[in-house]
C-alpha cells in the first residue's frame, strides 16, 4: 500500500505572513501528499481538533514573527488530547538560540529560510512513515 502522508500546514499565534506556508503546502500537495491548509491565527485547540479529525501525520507550523514561542504549548495540547504521536515541524524565522528549546519540547525539525523544498518534502514523507509505523505497528 502506498503511503500518502497526511499533512496539516498552518499558522498559530498572531502573525499573518503566509507566503511560506502557501508555497510549502503547494509543494507538498504536488509531491502527492494529502495537505490540509488553514488560514493563519489558528487557536491551539482548533489545530489539535483538526489534526485528530483529519488523521494527520505531520503538522507544519510556519512562523515568521515569533509565533514559534507557543509551539511547545501546541505539543503539550496534542499530547493531552492523545495525539502526541503526530510529528510537528516548524519552518520560518527561528533564532538559533531558540531551536534547542523547540527540539526539547518535541519538535521533529526546524527548517530555516533557504531550505530546499525537496528536503522539506523528503523529511515530511519519512516523518509520516515513522508516525504510521507507531500507529499501526502490524500494518506491514
Amino acid at each position, binding site marked *: 500500500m502506498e503511503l500518502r502522508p497526511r499533512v496539516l500546514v498552518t499558522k498559530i*499565534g498572531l502573525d499573518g*505572513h503566509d507566503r511560506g506556508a502557501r508555497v510549502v*503546502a503547494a509543494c507538498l*500537495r504536488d509531491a502527492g501528499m494529502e495537505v490540509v*491548509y488553514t488560514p493563519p*491565527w489558528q487557536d491551539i485547540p482548533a489545530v489539535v481538533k483538526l489534526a485528530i479529525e483529519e488523521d494527520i501525520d505531520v503538522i507544519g507550523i510556519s512562523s515568521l514573527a515569533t509565533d514559534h514561542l507557543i509551539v511547545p504549548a501546541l505539543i503539550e495540547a496534542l499530547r493531552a488530547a492523545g495525539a502526541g504521536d503526530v510529528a510537528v515541524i516548524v519552518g520560518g524565522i527561528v533564532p538559533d538560540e531558540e531551536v534547542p528549546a523547540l527540539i526539547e519540547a518535541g519538535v521533529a525539525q526546524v527548517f530555516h529560510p533557504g531550505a530546499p523544498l525537496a528536503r522539506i518534502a523528503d523529511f515530511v514523507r519519512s516523518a509520516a512513515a515513522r508516525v504510521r509505523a507507531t500507529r499501526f505497528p502490524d500494518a506491514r
Partner: protein
Amino acid sequence: MTRLSQEVHTASPAPGADPAARQSAEDASRLREAAERWRAEYAASVGAQPDAVNRSGIAIEPLYVPADAPPSFLDRIGYPGQPPYTRGIYATMHRGRSWSQRQLVGLGTPADYNARLRRLIEGGTTAVSLIPCNSVFRGFDMNEVPAELLGTCGTVVDTVEHLETCLDGLDLARTSVALNDPLPFTLLAFLIVAAERRGLDPACLAGTSNQSDYLSHCVANHMFFRLSLPGSRRVLLDEIAFCMGRMPRWNTLSVVGQHMQQAGATPAQAMAFTLSSAIQYARDCIARGMRPDEFLPRFTFFFDVSISFFEEIAKFRAGRRLWTRIARDTLGARDARAWRFKFHAQTSGVDLTRAQPLNNIARVAVQAMAGIFGGLQSLHTDAWDEALSTPGPAGARIAVATQNILREEARLTDVIDPLGGSWYVEQLTDRMEAEIERTLAIVEDAGGMYRAVEAGLVQRMIGESARRFQEHIESGEQVCVGVNAWREPDEGQTHLAQPRPDPARMRSHLESFRRWKAGRPAAAVSRALDDLTRAAHDDTANTFEQVVAAARSGCTHGEICARLRRELGTGQPLAMI
C-alpha cells in the same frame, strides 16, 4: 537573439538629396555597419544563450541603443517636478532635500519604546514610526493573547495612556509620526486624544496612517485585515473624510504595494495592483462627494524594493508616469499636488538569506540604491539579521549607516534621476509601464480592485507568481548566493539576537493595564461603545469620529476593534494554496 531596434539601422533616406541628406545617409550606413559588426562579434563569442528575463517577465537585451529611448523627451521623460514626473515629483529631488530616513521602531512595553525614541530624538530624528505588537495588529488587547508573544514584534499599545508613554518628550507639533495603524485607526484616535490632553489642536499633527490600505491586507498582509471588506470600505472613507476636515497635515491613506510584492507579486504586478487600489479608493471618495484635488494630495504610496536593480528603478519611474495620467485624466484632478506620486520604500526582506547572513548588507545596499535612483521620498533599510531573528541594535545601526554612506560618501544624490536618459533604463521604463498597464486592464475588466479582490483574482495571480519565483530558486535559474550557488560551509554564528522583552516588565505592564481597566468609569465606556454601534448602522454618521470619541472615553483598542467587528463583520482572508 539580439533585437536591436531594426528601424534605426535599416532606415535609409532618399538618395540623391541635398548634402545634409547625403551626410545622414552615410551616418546611417556607418551605424548599420557598426551594429551588424557588433551583433556578429557578440553572437560568435556568446553563442546561443538563454534569454535574460526580469522578475516581471520582460526580456532583457544585451545592449541598448539610442532608438530604445522614447522619441519625445518632453512628453515621456521631461524635467523633475513637471508632468509626467518620470524623473521625480519635485524640481529639486534629493539634491535639494534628502529622503526621510524612517526606520521601523517598536518592541516591548511603551516605556521600552519611549527609551528607544529618546535616543533617536537625541540623534536628531524628525520622523518617527511606531510598530505595535502583533496582538494590536490582530485587534486584541494584551490580556486576550498568549503572553509569550507580547511585545516580541512591536510595542504593546492598547490605550491613550500607553501611546502617551510611548511619545513622552516628543514635540508632536514638529515631528512627523508614521503609525502602523490598520483601520479602525485606534492609534490615530489615541494620538488625537493625546494631543488634546496636551492642549494641542489635532490640526497640527503631521504624519501618515500607514496600513490603512485594507485591500492589500485582504490580499497579502492578512494580520492587518480586521474588518470585513464592506466594513473596511466604510471606515476608511470615514477616516479620510474626518481628517480632510480637521487634520490637513495628516496623510490619510498609504496605498501599499509592499505587502503584495512580499507575498510574491512581481514588481510590475505590485505596481499595477497598487495603482488599481488607489483608483478604487479615489473612486470611492468621489462617490462619497469628496473632490480629488482635496483628498488625492494626502494619498501616499509604499513599496517594496527588491534586488532586481534596474527593474525596480524602472518600476518607480513608470509608476510615477502612470499615476500622473491616472490622477489627471482618469480621476480628473486639476491640482498638480494630486498628480505627484509620493512614496516610501522598504528594502525587501524576501531577498535576504539566512546562509552567509552578512551578505545581506550588500543586498540591502543594492536595494536601497535602486530605491534612491527610483526617486523615493522616504526609505527604510532592513537590518542584515532580519533573516535570523528580530533585528538587534547592531544590525539596525548598519541599516541606517548604509543610507548615510550612499548619500554622503557615495554622493548618490548629487544628480537628479542620474539614470534618466540611459537607453536601457528608458526602454525598460516603457516596457514596465506597458506590463503594468496590462495588469491594470485585467483588474479593470474584473470590475476594479475591490471586486477583483473579493473574487480572489488578485490573490490567485500573486500566488502563481510566488510559486514561479520559488521554482526559479529551486531550479537555480534565480541565483541566491549562499543558498543555491556559492555555498560555503557554515562559518558559525556570530550573531547576537535581539533579546526578547523582559518578561517581568511585560507582566507588570499587563497587570497595570488590568488595574487601569477595572478603575475606569464603566458607564462612559459602555456609552461610547454603544455610540459606536449606532454610528456603524447609520450611514450618515462618521464611524471614525466615534472611534475618537470612544478613545476619549477610555475605551481600549481591543474593545473598539471588537465592537466594530461585531457590527461590521470580521475580516476573513481567502485561504487558498
